[in-house]
C-alpha cells in the first residue's frame, strides 16, 4: 500500500524588538546570565504587564507578509503550567483572539508549486533557560530570555514531505527576515519548530494518529526527524510493530531516533483564560495602514524590479538574500544612479569585508547613501578604485562622508596638470638611464617610469593624463 504523510507545523520566531513584550528589559540575545531581568520578568508580585506596541507592529507585519487577516481587536490570555523557567507559572499568549488568522505561504518544490494555509499567528512571551551547573550539581535558571516576544505561526496540515517542510520553512524565514520581523537564526534559537505528523493510506480522507516533535532547531534535524517518524508510523501500521498513540516525542538528532515524552492523557491542561491585566489591543485604521505602508516588496518582486534597473538575474538574486543588502543597494542606486556599479560594490566589495569581519549579510549597516556617493566619485574619476576600496573599509567602522574623507586624506585624483608635469620631470631627471633607453627604442621602460610617477602621486591622478604628460616629456 502507498502512504501519504500529513504534516502541520508550529513555528516559533523571536521578534526583533529592542525590549521585551511586557516590560522594558532588553530583548537582545546573550548577555551575562540574568542581566536582562526586572521584577516583572522574574515573576515577582506587584508588576503589571504593559504591552510593547512594537511587538504588535511586528505581529501584524508577519501576518501581512503571509496574507493573513488581521484581527482588529486582539487579546492576550494566560496559559498555566509549572516549570522553573516560567517564573509566573503562566505564559501570556493569545488563545481566543490571535492577531492574525487565515493566511497562505507559497512554496516551490520539485513537485511544483503549492499554497500552504496558515491557521493563525499569535504573539506570546518566551520562557527562560535552565542551566545545569556541574560544579554544584544543581539546576539554575537564566531569565534573560523570559518575556522576549515571540510569534507562533501555526500552519494547517497541508505539508506532505520533508522537502515541502524545508521549502516552507525557508520561505517563511526569507519573508520574516525580509520584513525585519526576526533574524530567524536557528542556531540562536530565534526560530524553532514543532512538527505534527501523521500517516494515512494515499487517497484516504481520515487522518492517522498524530505525534508531535517539539523544539526542532535545524533544517537537517527536521528533515531526518520527518523521515524517521514517517517510517516509524508506516512500520507500525503495516507490521504492527507498535501501537501508535497521540503523544509528544523528543527527537534525538545524534541517535537519529524519536522518543516518547508524554501522551495526550498525561498532557497538562493549560487552563487558558483572558488576562484581566492586559486590555484588548484595538488596531484602528491609522495603525493598520501605517504597517501596511511600511511592508516591503516580496523578495521576488524586488528582484524583478532590480532586473528592470539593469541588473543580471544573478546579481538580483544575490541582493535579495538579505533585506540589508537590498536597502543599501536601493539607497546607493538612488544616490549614484548606477545600478550595476552599486550591485557590484555590494556583492563583491562589501561582502569581502563582511566575510573578513566574520559578519553576515544581514549585518551590513553602512550608509547606502554614502556608498552611492563613493560610487559617484569613482565614476567621475575623482577617486580611483583602489582608494575607493580603502574608503569603503573605513565606512564599515565610521560614519563618514566619502568626499570629505577623500579630500582630507589626499585621496582625490589630481587634475592639476602643472603638478603632473612637475612629477614627470622630476622622475625623468632622477632616472636618466631609463629615459635614454626609451629614446633608444626600449619601450618597455615606459611602464616603469609611469609606475614611479604614479607612486609619487600616490595614485591620485588620471592615468590617461599622466600617460600623455610622460609621453610628452619623453619626446
Amino acid at each position: 500500500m502507498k502512504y501519504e504523510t500529513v504534516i502541520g507545523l508550529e513555528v516559533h520566531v523571536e521578534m526583533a524588538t529592542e525590549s521585551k513584550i511586557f516590560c522594558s528589559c532588553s530583548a537582545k540575545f546573550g548577555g551575562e546570565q540574568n542581566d536582562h531581568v526586572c521584577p516583572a520578568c522574574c515573576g515577582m508580585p506587584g508588576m503589571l504587564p504593559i504591552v510593547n506596541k512594537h511587538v504588535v507592529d511586528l505581529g501584524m507585519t508577519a501576518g501581512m507578509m503571509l496574507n493573513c487577516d488581521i484581527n482588529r481587536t486582539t487579546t492576550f490570555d494566560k496559559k498555566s503550567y509549572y516549570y522553573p523557567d516560567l517564573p509566573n507559572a503562566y505564559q501570556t499568549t493569545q488563545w481566543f483572539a490571535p492577531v492574525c488568522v487565515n493566511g497562505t505561504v507559497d512554496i516551490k518544490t520539485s513537485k511544483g508549486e503549492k499554497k500552504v494555509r496558515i491557521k493563525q499567528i499569535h504573539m506570546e512571551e518566551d520562557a527562560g533557560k535552565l542551566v545545569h551547573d556541574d560544579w554544584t550539581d544543581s539546576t539554575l535558571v537564566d531569565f534573560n530570555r523570559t518575556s522576549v516576544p515571540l510569534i507562533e505561526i501555526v500552519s494547517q496540515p497541508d505539508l506532505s514531505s520533508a522537502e515541502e517542510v524545508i521549502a516552507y520553512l525557508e520561505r517563511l524565514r526569507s519573508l520574516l527576515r525580509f520584513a525585519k520581523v526576526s533574524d530567524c537564526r536557528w542556531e540562536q534559537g530565534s526560530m524553532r519548530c514543532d512538527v505534527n505528523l501523521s500517516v494515512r493510506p494515499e487517497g484516504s480522507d481520515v487522518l492517522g494518529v498524530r505525534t508531535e516533535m517539539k523544539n526542532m532547531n535545524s533544517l537537517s534535524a527536521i528533515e531526518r526527524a520527518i523521515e524517521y517518524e514517517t517510517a516509524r508510523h508506516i512500520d507500525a501500521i503495516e507490521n504492527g510493530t507498535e501501537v501508535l498513540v497521540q503523544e509528544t516525542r523528543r527527537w534525538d538528532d545524534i541517535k537519529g531516533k524519536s522518543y516518547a515524552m508524554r501522551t495526550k492523557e498525561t498532557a497538562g491542561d493549560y487552563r487558558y483564560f483572558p488576562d484581566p491585566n492586559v486590555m484588548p489591543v484595538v488596531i484602528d485604521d491609522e495603525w493598520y495602514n501605517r504597517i501596511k505602508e511600511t511592508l516591503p516588496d516580496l523578495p521576488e518582486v524586488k528582484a524583478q524590479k532590480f532586473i528592470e534597473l539593469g541588473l543580471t538575474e544573478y546579481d538580483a538574486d544575490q541582493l535579495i538574500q538579505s533585506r540589508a543588502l537590498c536597502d543599501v543597494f536601493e539607497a546607493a542606486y538612488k544616490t549614484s544612479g548606477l545600478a550595476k556599479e552599486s550591485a557590484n560594490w555590494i556583492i563583491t566589495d562589501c561582502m569581502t569585508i563582511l566575510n573578513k569581519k566574520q559578519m553576515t549579510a544581514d549585518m551590513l549597516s553602512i550608509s547606502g547613501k554614502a556608498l552611492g556617493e563613493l560610487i559617484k566619485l569613482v565614476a567621475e574619476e575623482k577617486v580611483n578604485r583602489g582608494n575607493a576600496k580603502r574608503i569603503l573599509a573605513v565606512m564599515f567602522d565610521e560614519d563618514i562622508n566619502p568626499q570629505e574623507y577623500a579630500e582630507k586624506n589626499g585621496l582625490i585624483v589630481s587634475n592639476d596638470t602643472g603638478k603632473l608635469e612637475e612629477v614627470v620631470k622630476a622622475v625623468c631627471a632622477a632616472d636618466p638611464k631609463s629615459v635614454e633607453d626609451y629614446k633608444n627604442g626600449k619601450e618597455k621602460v615606459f611602464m616603469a617610469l609611469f609606475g614611479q610617477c604614479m607612486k609619487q602621486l600616490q595614485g591620485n591622478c588620471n592615468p590617461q593624463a599622466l600617460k600623455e604628460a610622460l609621453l610628452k616629456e619623453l619626446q
Partner: protein
Amino acid sequence: MKLYTAKSENVSGKPVVLDDTILTKDMPTAAGSKMLDGYMSLFDAEIISKLKDAGFGICGKANVGEMAIDLLGETSYYGECTDESGKLVGASAEIVKNGEAVAAISMDVCGSSARAAAMSGLVYIKPTYGTVSRFGTIPAACSGECVAVSAKTASECREVLSAIAGHDDKDGTSLPEDKCALLKADAPRSEIKKIAIAKALVDSASDEVKALIESFKANADGVEFAPIDANELTYAQAAWNILMSAEVCNNVSKYDGVKYGYRAAEFSNIDELYTNSRTEAFGYLLKSTILFGSETLSEDNYMKVYDKALRVRRVIVEYFDKLFADFDAVLMPVSSKTAYTKADTDANTYIAYDESIYTAPASITGLPRAVVGGVQLVGKAFSENSLLDLATKVRKEGK
C-alpha cells in the same frame, strides 16, 4: 493578636496604615501568607509616593487574611484579630479606630476590608476600577480588586482617596487622567437624591443589619428611597466566586518555592519542591480556592463555568446601567450580621464565599462602594465624591 506585621519607627506626616497586601521597599509584605513571610519587595507600590507627596506617612503594615480573600482576616498566617468581646476585626480598621492612623489602605478583593470597616464603625470607599493604580499590590483577583480607603470620617476618606487616585502608565488597566480626576476632592459632583434598596439582599440579612439599613434611611435627610427586587444582583455572588477563584489560582501559581518565598526543606525532585512548598505554606481557604479556580478553568469546564461567569458579569453591569437611569445609588448590606466570631469561621471555612453575596455586585462590576453606618452603598462609576458627600450627611459630620 497581631495588628501590625511591621511598624515604622519614624513617621513623617499624617500616619496611614497599609494592609500587608501593598508592597513596600522598606518593610516586608506577606499578604498574610506563610509563603511570603518576610518577603521584601524591590519596589514600592505606586500609591506610596502619592501618599507621601500629599503629606502622609506610612506608619506600618497591618495583618490581613491570606491574599485578602477571607471574611475578616481569620486566615492570616500571623493569626486572626479580635476585639475584647471576641468579635473578629480587621487589623487595619482597628488600628484606625484606635487612632494610631488617620486612614487604612486595603486591597478590596472580596469585600473583607469593607466588612472590616463596618465592624469597626469606619467610613469606607472602594473607588471605581481603574482609578487608583494597582501597581505594587499583591495580585489576587485582578479583574475586580481595587485599592480602597477606610477612615473615621468621610472627609478623611476623601482626602486620602484624592491623594492616591490618578492615571499610572505602569498599570495597563489604569483609566485616563480625566476620569481619575473625577475622584479629586474638589472635582464637580452631583448630589445623591434617589436610592434603590436592594430588597433581595436586605431580606437575607439579620435583623440587626436591617436595623442599620433603617437607621441609614432615617439619617439621609432629603433622599428618596425606593425598594427594588434586585434578584439579579444575587447572581453576582456565584459569578464573582468563579472569576475570583480562577484568578487567585493563577496569580498565586507563581509562588512555587523556586525563586523567593517559602521553600520546603524536603524534596527530591522539582514536582516535590512545588508540591511540598505549596502544601506547607498555603492555608486551607487558599488551597480550596486554588482547587476551585483550577477546576473552573479546566478545558471541560471553561465554557460551562468560567465563560458563563463572564457573561453574568456583563448582565450585572447592564442591570446597574439600567438601574442608574432612575437611581443615583443602590443601598444594600455589606454583611449578613453585625458581628462574627472565630466560632463562625471555624464552623464554615467558606463563610467569605457565602458573605460575598453582598459584596460581589460592586466587586464584579468595578463600581464604587461606600460603607457607612455598617451598610453599603453602590454608586455609579466615578461617583465617589457623591457617595462620600452623602456619608458626611448621614453621619452628620461637622455638625
